[in-house]
């Protein structure tokens, strides 16, 4: 007769009752899943955590516990916090890149605007242009401005 124990009860070498808290979230076809969470959190803690949650949240909780346990086993010093570190760094890097490009766009925009003003200058008051350029505006004859 095939065993119907969940991965947790198999690991703990006990009978798997019909109302086993682990059976839905630690199926027997994935023994590693329970092995990891047991190593990091302990069966008793995992059981308590799942018991304290409403039934519809337990699956996600079991998944996140497995993820955390997996990260901790992969990186025994930092665990999940190592990933959070990396993400914070990436956010900072991308924000810097965006700021740099936006500054370039603003600079190009300002530059293009002043070039445009120079090109249509004959139709404008030269004193106005001089003010824009920050020069003194002592020209009386607009025709002498460009020669």
């Amino acid at each position: 007769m095939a065993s119907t124990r969940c991965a947790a009860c198999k690991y703990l070498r006990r009978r798997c009752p019909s109302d086993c808290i682990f059976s839905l979230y630690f199926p027997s076809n994935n023994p590693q899943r329970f092995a990891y969470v047991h190593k990091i959190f302990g069966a008793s803690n995992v059981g308590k955590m799942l018991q304290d949650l409403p039934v519809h949240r337990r699956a996600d909780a079991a998944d996140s516990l497995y993820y955390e346990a997996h990260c901790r086993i992969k990186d025994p010093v930092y665990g999940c916090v190592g990933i959070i570190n990396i993400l914070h760094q990436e956010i900072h890097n991308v924000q810097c890149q965006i700021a740099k490009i936006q500054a370039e766009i603003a600079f190009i925009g300002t530059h293009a605007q002043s070039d445009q003003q120079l090109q249509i200058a004959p139709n404008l008051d030269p004193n106005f242009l001089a003010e824009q350029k920050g020069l003194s505006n002592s020209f009386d004859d607009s025709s002498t401005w460009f020669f």
Partner: protein
Amino acid sequence: MGGGSSPCASCKLLRRRCTKDCVFAPYFPPDDPHKFAIVHKVFGASNISKMLQELPVHKRADAVSSLVYEANSRMRDPVYGCVGAISYLQNQVAQLQMQLAVAQAEIYCIQMQQEPPNLQPQMVEPTDENCLLFASNDLDYNLQQYLSFASSSSSSSVMQDSVKRESLCTVDPSGDQFVPKRSPTYMFGM
């Protein structure tokens, strides 16, 4: 304790004698009982002891800091714990990358407009799709290394599903509340 220092927070909580080679003593001082209480609740004293003993001494302080961080996250969010914060940050990264792609497309278009026409032979029309190609970077590779296990999980991936959701996280977006208080190796911009 016969005239010596008081027992560490863990030995006080566990009501046992705090020996001079207690593995917890350097990291759980008696003036902060809450710190040990919270990691004990989530991980258990026995598991913490095993984890610390498997690490070299100079790494244990960082390990304790990260365990405290994870335990706090789990207490704050019993369903997702730290994973909620990771999901939130990944969403933020994705949004910023889209903004970056848009900005890069914009500057590319501006630069294309400024180039004289005879210098643009047979160039592809600068569309947003083309410009988005320039926005890719190495971020995805780093994250994929961590996320690759999720696709092998027997249940639906919490990470891949969570990225698609609006908001999973109950964590303070600034993240500052979770910054471990020591160690320059935590690059939170302290």
